[in-house]
Each structure stands twice: as C-alpha cells, then as structure tokens.
C-alpha cells in the first residue's frame, strides 16, 4: 500500500480511459501551442491589414480575419495563452487557499474547525460573481487582480474536500505515531498529510480549471475581464458576437476552440477522478 502503487494503478486505469486520454492529449497540445504562440502564429496578434478587413478563411488566413484585418488563427493562439494562464494561475490561488484552510480546519478540529467551516458555509451562500465584478470595477481591470479574485472565489469547495480527507487521516496510526514523536504542525501538514491527499486535490484542481476559464470568459464577455489590446478567448467570443451577423466565423472558431478545451478538461478531470477513486466511477 505505498504511494507508488496507488499512482501507478491510477495511471494504468487512466490510460485505459479513451475519453480522458484524448482530453489529456488535446490539453497537452493546446499548452504547447499556447506556449509557442509567438513563434508559430502566422502573424502577430495585433498586425492589422486594414485593406483586407474581415475576410473569410483562406489560404493566407486559415481561419479568416477580423474587422481590422487581424489574423484570427494568430489571435486564437495568443488568446490561448491568456485563457490558459488565467485557468492555471487562478486555480493555483484557489488551491493554496483551499488546501491550507482545509488542512488546518480538519487537523486542529474542535472549535477552530467549526468556526472555519462556518465561514466557508456563509461564503458559499454569497453571490461571489457580483463581488468579482465589484472588485474589477473598483480597482480597475487588472490581470493579476482577476487571478486573485477568481482564485479567492473558487477555494471553498477545495477547503471542504481537503478537510474531509484530513479528518479521515487524522486518526490513522502513522499520523498518531508522527504526533507522538513530536513532529511540528507545519511538517505534519507538509510531510504526512499533504502527500496523502494529493489524489483528491489533483482531481478537484483539474475540474476547477474549466470553471475558472468559464468565469474569465464570462467576465471578458461582459467587458469586465481582459482588456484590449490583450485578448482571451472570452474577448474573442465577445468580438465575434458583435459582428456575427455578417462574419459568423469570428464567433464560430473561437467558440469551437473554447468548447473543445472545456470538453478536454472535463473529460480528463472525470477520468482522473475515476482512476484515483474507483469507487465513485460507477455513477
């Protein structure tokens, strides 16, 4: 029952799940494309060919151009950088807050636990989307603020999951043995508890990324997220909607890209969950 066998079992199960593997493959490709965007994109994302205007897909511009004559494929590739960056960074923020909160509440227990979890309950019931909008309005539409604000919203479920796991671990022999040996709380968290809950954390993190990307898309769509000249998939979709009557490809290609990415993330996350926790895989 060591860690390696759990993970190698999981990898084996994951590798047999075709939908999840396809999702994972698409994700890896997207990440590579996004990382290499400045080098592989056929044009710069801001290069305008005003004579061209909005043109349908052609040999020069595989996905067509927008109203300002900018190459859509290049803009989608560059948008991938921002969209994926928001997805990963904001999930990272949520992860750090949620895991810390959950471990502390679960391990210390008692009154601290009930106060901390009551706070989570209360925050759950609030319209956070409105607070994000509020923050963006008050402090300006800043990329890092967006990361922080989205992360600060998405940590709640993570805290609950981690707390549940820690409570399950707390009374096991190895934790008691470690405590008896006088291990400090901090190294207890880092060395004993955290490695044992990595599975659920990984699963939930994978499933948080699409939610975060949706949230970013939503804000950008309303004009409250990423600001020009930067563009994310959300802003591309917004631009596409504004001109969809004449130039429908401007909506359709960014839309397809965004949807495929969300599909890939969801399938991969579901597969990971099934692989790490075979009990739940049946439903």
């Amino acid at each position: 029952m060591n860690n390696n066998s759990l993970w190698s079992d999981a990898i084996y199960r994951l590798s047999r799940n075709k939908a999840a593997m396809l999702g994972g493959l698409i994700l890896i490709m997207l990440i590579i494309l996004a990382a290499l965007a400045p080098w592989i994109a056929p044009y710069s994302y801001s290069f305008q060919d005003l004579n061209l205007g909005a043109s349908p897909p052609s040999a020069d511009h595989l996905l067509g151009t927008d109203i300002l004559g900018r190459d859509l494929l290049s803009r989608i590739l560059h948008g991938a950088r921002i969209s994926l960056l928001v997805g990963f960074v904001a999930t990272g923020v949520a992860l750090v807050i949620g895991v810390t909160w959950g471990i502390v509440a679960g391990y210390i227990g008692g009154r601290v636990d009930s106060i901390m979890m009551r706070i989570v309950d209360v925050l759950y019931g609030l319209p956070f989307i409105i607070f994000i909008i509020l923050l963006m309005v008050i402090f300006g539409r800043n990329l890092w603020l967006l990361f922080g604000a989205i992360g600060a919203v998405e940590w709640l479920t993570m805290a609950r999951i981690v707390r549940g796991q820690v409570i399950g671990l707390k009374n096991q022999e190895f934790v008691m043995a470690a405590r008896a040996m006088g291990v400090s709380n901090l190294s207890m968290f880092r060395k004993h508890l955290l490695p044992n809950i990595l599975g659920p954390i990984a699963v939930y993190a994978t499933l948080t990324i699409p939610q975060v990307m949706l949230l970013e898309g939503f804000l950008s769509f309303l004009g409250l997220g990423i600001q020009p000249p930067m563009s994310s998939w959300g802003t591309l979709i917004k631009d596409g909607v504004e001109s969809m009557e004449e130039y429908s490809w401007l909506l359709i290609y960014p839309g397809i890209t965004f949807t495929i990415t969300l599909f890939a993330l969801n399938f991969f996350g579901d597969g990971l969950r099934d692989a790490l926790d075979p009990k739940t895989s049946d439903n």
Partner: protein
Amino acid sequence: MISIFFKRILLAIPVLFAVASITFFLIKIAPGGPFDADRAVSPQVLKNLNETYNLDASNWEQYVDYMSGLMQGDLGPSFRFPGRSVTEMIATGLPVTFELAFYAILIALLMGVFSGVLAALKRNTVLDFIPMAIAMIGICVPTFLMGPLLVLIFGINLELLPVSGWGQLPGDKILPSITLGFAYAAYIARLSRGGMLEVLNQDFIRTARAKGLTERMVVIKHAMQGGLIPVVSFLGPAIAGLLAGSFVVETIFQIPGLGRFYVEAAFNRDYTMILGTTIFFSAMIVFFNLMSDLAALWLNPRSRDAS
C-alpha cells in the same frame, strides 16, 4: 425542523449586514467620485451635488445614514439617473428577471429531470448515452456562447424567432429562456441520473417491486422522492448561477432586467446602484439557499423525523 429554520434565519441577518457593510466601504475606497466623469463640472456644481447626495458628510455618518435607509427598504438615489431611486429601478427590473429565471428553471427542471430519470432507468442504453452526451454539451458550452449561437441559427439563419427584446414580439421570450435554462438542464440531468441510480439499488425499491407495484408507481412514488434530493439541494445555488447567467442573457438579448441594470451600473460606475443591487442580490441568494436547504431536509425522511 422549525428550530433549524429559525437558526438559519438568525444566521442570515448578520451575514447580510456584513455584506452590506463590506460593500459600502469597498465602494468608499474606490478611486474617483461618481461625478468626476466625462465633462468637467464647476466646483460650485460639484459642491451642490455632493451636498444633495450627502457625500460631504464623514464616511461614518454616510454609513449610518445608508444603513438606516436600508432598514426601511430605501437604497438611496441613483447617481447616473437623477430623480430615480435605486429601489425604484430594482422594482422595474426585478419582474422581468424573475420571469426569465422562472421560465429558465422550468425548462431546466422539465428537461433535466425527465432525461436524467430516463437515463437512470435505461442505464447503458442509447436513451442513457444520448441525453448524457447532450448534457455534457450543455455543461461545456457556456451561456455567453450558447446564446449567440442560438441567435445565429434560429434568429438570423432560419429567421424563426426574434433575436432580441422581451415581450415586444411574439416568441421573443423563447430564446433567452432556453439559453439560460439549458446549462441548468444539463446539471439537473446529471444530478437526477446519479441520485436515481443510487436509490434504485436500495432495498426499499426491491420491496416495492416485490409488493407487486407497477414500475411506474415504483419510480414515481418511491424512487423519485429520494433520488431527486440532490436536485432540490442544487436549486438554491442554481439561483445564484441564474443571476450571473441573467447578466449575460439580458445583455445578449437586450432585456431590460436587473442583470442588465447591474452590468450597466458597473460600467457607469453608478455606485449607489451597484451597492443597492449587490445587497439585494445577496439577500435573494441567501433566501433561496435557505429555502432549498429546508426543502431538501424536509424531503429526506431521516432528517424530517429526527426533529
């Protein structure tokens, strides 16, 4: 049951109070006043404006003032639309948003529960796979993409339905309601499928079948009551999501509801409007969460009998 109810209401009051206070002070620290907008105003005018809206009082005085107004349902005047109060504007937009949300929830429940229950009963058949695949689409295609796509297909290409408005042309309520409801139909389908599968394996279902009840009775009377508890618990949080969805849907379809007012207020920096709607939305969400929790408690015989 009743004691839980009162406990939850008592908890909700300080929460709303805190939300109102935090929002109030957040807006106070926002850079820039509401009147230093596009055109410059003379100092005298600015002074008068500040006096009219009581902005030259100390923050603390304004806070006390606002809170006592709030107790009486007065959310102050709108900065952007002189002569109109925030309460008035909420009252104009609310019925529209409610109607939209009501249709959306109705669509979501009808489509979601029907396909979820069917999928659970016909597990691992085509009737399971197809609805669940559609549900996955509903979850992965965001509202802000679904809406425009529906407009493009049904409004612009097929010219079947109006592309915007609310209550002005026949059928103009259909696309917004479907757009908003579809994502929730997808979640509800997945939840009711999962819940039903869990319940259908339990002994009391076998007993019901052994008693010789018809399959329809078993499903409707026995299985659905337990199997749909997850759906009921989901409805509370779904209301919060519906609100966020209404921001998008009302913007896409140009519906004069609360969601669009909020987004416009955010753009115009109409601080009193933002403050008022935030408090109002929070109150609504807290209320609906409470209702859905209580309904779920009540549906579950174990927790119902315990108290």
